[in-house]
């Protein structure tokens, strides 16, 4: 009798939140974002852009802070801040003037400090800052869903059309142009799509934790498989599972979704990584 109750409780833990409208929207958004972030995340992991993705997400913070008070749509402000970051980074690292890691560190802290001052002293955003930094279950509106659809569609199209180019460019940067691969063109599109995906996941996971969807699932997938097609599919599946799991955890524990997804994602990665170590040790 007790086991039936326990099973029911578990089932209710899963299904109760899904009866609520805002959770249904959050769930839909998460599944769409899993497609976008899983696919783009695979390229982020392969092209070693993990730190850049995290930094780009963090860099949107000042944009998000000023969006509400200035009456700009948050994704637009975030995109502006993110593209500004990428542009400045490109400028600073051109011809080796500043090393990439130093430039990223400088821009990242500048964005955080600027956002902190704007939030605490100019616009007095107060507790709203948590939402910007770590995401929210509640605030996902139709605009966010539309953006998630766009990001997912763009990611699917781009992977189909440019996957070969990105693969060849990443595999052998010196030899790619000689193969007729339009490396520069493809990389520009990759960065643009990355910016779009970062902006799309911001409402759900927040500026400081874009890596939870963009990097961690794809990294876990990479531990599991060595073929590109399987990698892309696994990244999407893992992102979806972790996203939904994190969503439910956030609901029940009254937390923002970003940290919840982060903890689940990290746990899964650790288990898979340790499992691999054990397997090779045998």
């Amino acid at each position, binding site marked *: 009798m007790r086991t039936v109750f326990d099973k029911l409780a578990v089932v209710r833990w899963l299904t109760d939140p899904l009866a609520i409208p805002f959770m249904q929207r959050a769930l839909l958004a998460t599944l769409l974002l899993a497609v976008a972030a899983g696919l783009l995340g695979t390229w982020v992991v392969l092209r070693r852009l993990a730190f850049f993705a995290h930094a780009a997400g963090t860099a949107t913070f000042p944009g998000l802070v000023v969006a509400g008070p200035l009456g700009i749509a948050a994704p637009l402000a975030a995109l502006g801040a993110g593209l500004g970051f990428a542009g400045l980074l490109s400028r600073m690292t051109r011809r080796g003037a500043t090393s990439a890691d130093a430039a990223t560190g400088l821009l990242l802290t500048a964005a955080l400090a600027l956002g902190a001052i704007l939030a605490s002293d100019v616009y007095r955003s107060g507790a709203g800052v948590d939402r910007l930094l770590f995401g929210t279950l509640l605030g996902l509106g139709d605009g966010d869903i539309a953006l998630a659809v766009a990001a997912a569609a763009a990611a699917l199209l781009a992977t189909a059309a440019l996957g070969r180019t990105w693969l060849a460019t990443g595999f052998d940067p010196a030899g790619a142009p000689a193969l007729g691969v339009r490396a520069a063109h493809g990389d520009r599109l990759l960065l643009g799509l990355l910016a779009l995906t970062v902006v799309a996941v911001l409402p759900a996971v927040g500026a400081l934790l874009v890596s939870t969807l963009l990097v961690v699932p794809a990294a876990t997938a990479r531990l599991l498989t060595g073929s*590109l097609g399987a990698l892309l599919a696994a990244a999407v599946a893992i992102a979806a599972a972790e996203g939904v799991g994190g969503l439910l955890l956030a609901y029940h524990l009254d937390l923002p979704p970003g940290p919840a997804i982060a903890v689940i994602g990290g746990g899964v990665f650790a288990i898979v990584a340790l499992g691999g170590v054990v397997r090779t040790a045998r």
Partner: protein
Amino acid sequence: MSSPAAPPAPAAAASGVRVQGLSASYGAAAIALRDVTFAAAGGQAVAVLGPNGGGKTTLFRVLLGELPAATGSAAVRGTIAYVPQTERSRLDFPVSALDVTLMGAYARTPWYRRVAARDRALGRAALDRVGLADSSGTRFGALSGGQRQRVLIARALVQDAGVLLLDEPFAGVDRTSEEAILSILDELRAEGRVLLIATHDVEQARRWDRVLCLAGTQIAYGPPADTLTNAVLEGTYGAEIVMLDCGHRAVAIQHHSHSH
């Protein structure tokens, strides 16, 4: 190792490289290459000899069209393929030997199409030709250095280029692969293609039809027997030549630079 499925060789007259008074630089900074003049016809293999930073890579870049000539001209007749050193490739990438080989067909595959079945067959034939038919499904990074170099040559075969640029194809390569690569290069030369082989190995350079000595500028160009004199070698390598066998053998001392 010639397979009957090998593609028809381009006619000897169709491929060639002609360089006239070429100079090139990266941006407004130091000139990387000055006054290079030589010509190579189909069926010729040219060893490009010189120290690091001497301009071998710069010359290749100009021939590939990636770097513009500052002065002079560089003309290539026929399609051109580049075989880089395998150290430059990402060994952890999820690509098999066949995947890498098929990259040679990317130029003729539109972005909305998968690689054609005919090109897939060409890829398998190319791998067979370099002796790696059994390894087509193996992950590229899991192969040995010599095997990886052979895969990159197979990639160039799929491109079916009349002119091939090879960047030190024998560096760090095991005996089996070295023999396989030499055999393939001889075949390609016999098919009427032009081969430019960048190398550090002075003895290796003697094997080919012509030698081009580069040290920031052209020191000499011609058949190895006439060109590889002590004077030329000292001019190319500066004081870094060690003479062995009473002056009959010359060995170049290589310094590896580490940039910070």
